[in-house]
């Protein structure tokens, strides 16, 4: 399936969950990332159960930065 992840078009396997995508993208600190799916922040307890669909737009957001 085709997804937009952080503004980039990616082809990924069907049935991928948010947790699967975090592994796929090698996110080092999954406890720190906030995930926005089609404009809505997901609850962390939904990371394991939410399956991505064709055309989904996913953003990894961090509000933990120190210097801005």
């Amino acid at each position, binding site marked *: 399936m085709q997804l937009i992840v952080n503004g980039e078009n990616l082809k990924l396997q069907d049935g991928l969950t948010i947790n699967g995508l975090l592994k796929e993208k090698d*996110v*080092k*600190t*999954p*406890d*720190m*990332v*906030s995930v*926005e799916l089609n*404009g*809505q*922040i997901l*609850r*962390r*307890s939904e990371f394991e159960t939410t399956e991505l669909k064709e055309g989904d737009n996913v*953003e990894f*957001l*961090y*509000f*933990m*930065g*120190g*210097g*801005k």
Partner: protein
Amino acid sequence: MKPETLSIHSGFTGDKVTNATVVPIYQTVSYNHRTAEQLADIFEGKAGGYIYSRIANPTTTALENRLAELEEGIGCIATSSGMAAISAVATGLLETGTEILSARDIFGGTASLFKNTLARFGIKTRFVDAGKTKEFAENINDNTRFVFVETIGNPGMTVPDIPAVAEIAHNANIPLVVDNTVTTPAVFKPGRFGADIVIHSTSKFINGHGTAIGGAIIDTGNYDWSSGVFEDIKRLAGTVRQLAFLSYLRNTIYRDLGGCPAPMNSFLMLQGLETLFFRMTKHCRNAARLAQFLHKHPKIRRINYPGLKTSRFFERTMRLFEGGGGALLTFGLGDKQKAFRFIDSLKLAKNAANLGDAKTLIIHPGSTIFQEFSAEQKQEMGITEDMVRVSVGIEDFEDIKEDFNQAISKTFEV
């Protein structure tokens, strides 16, 4: 997963090095990064990672994630105390010339912050009777930046109609800030009823054992920061969207004022959360039984507990709260001397300036938490000289009842 399960399991994906089952205490100030570029990316917000424990710490992150889950919010910032949480929210949303619209019946520390400390910086607070919803509508104006209520006003036991107050705030395009300390997400989830920001003093029921001071700020995701009246936050909404408010706090107010929790305290709050639902059920049940007992006692006056049918907030309490009217109640003993004698006569209940402990606690609010307020102000807040406040613990109810019964007898025997 259901909330009771989340209170035990959420917020931490595990220590991949040791596989520890409990969230470890990361007692560290800073974090080593392999390359200079890595650290620069984290500073820029391009990647996740820890920099300095005043900004974020892994033990505290686990607590923040778990609290966000339990409040069904989009994110959380844990603070060094409940007052640090309220101070950060207030300084994040206000500037000179703006106003707060607040319930009058609130914790003395919060009232003092609004009335005295923030007033020094040109911020005005209008206090209204939180039981009367129309007073909020009558006192909101173009300068109001947020509306503030406690779920059950302490010590007046006022229960605001939170859905109606939220509607008033939203009609003025400003957020509703709700202090959920005395109810906790086990009894009430303010976000479901329109609250935009939830505040906690985690020192109370969340900690549950009186072992650490802490606080928390949760954004429920209800307020649209991209169209609000907060210019700095609105700008951030362009990059981090729904997280604009928390990002603004984390990277300015929270960072600059320095109200971060110690990792050890975050650990103690996580431990407390694991039994929160279990404890709240018992707290509420014991409080309801004690309220019934005191209500029937001929020597006791004005028992005030929102879960009691005689309370003017009984219907609202039953409509909003799951499992009862919380663990706090107040009552009168006739005069200050008798109130003091009653407190001194208790053997099991502790005379302490805290609430939400597993132990039953009692205090005379007029001479302690509200000492700094004038007689007139105390009257307005519903605090009388003969009044005591009880935070009902989770001991066996028969032991609590026996303790109160013998103290009432001693108080009135002379």
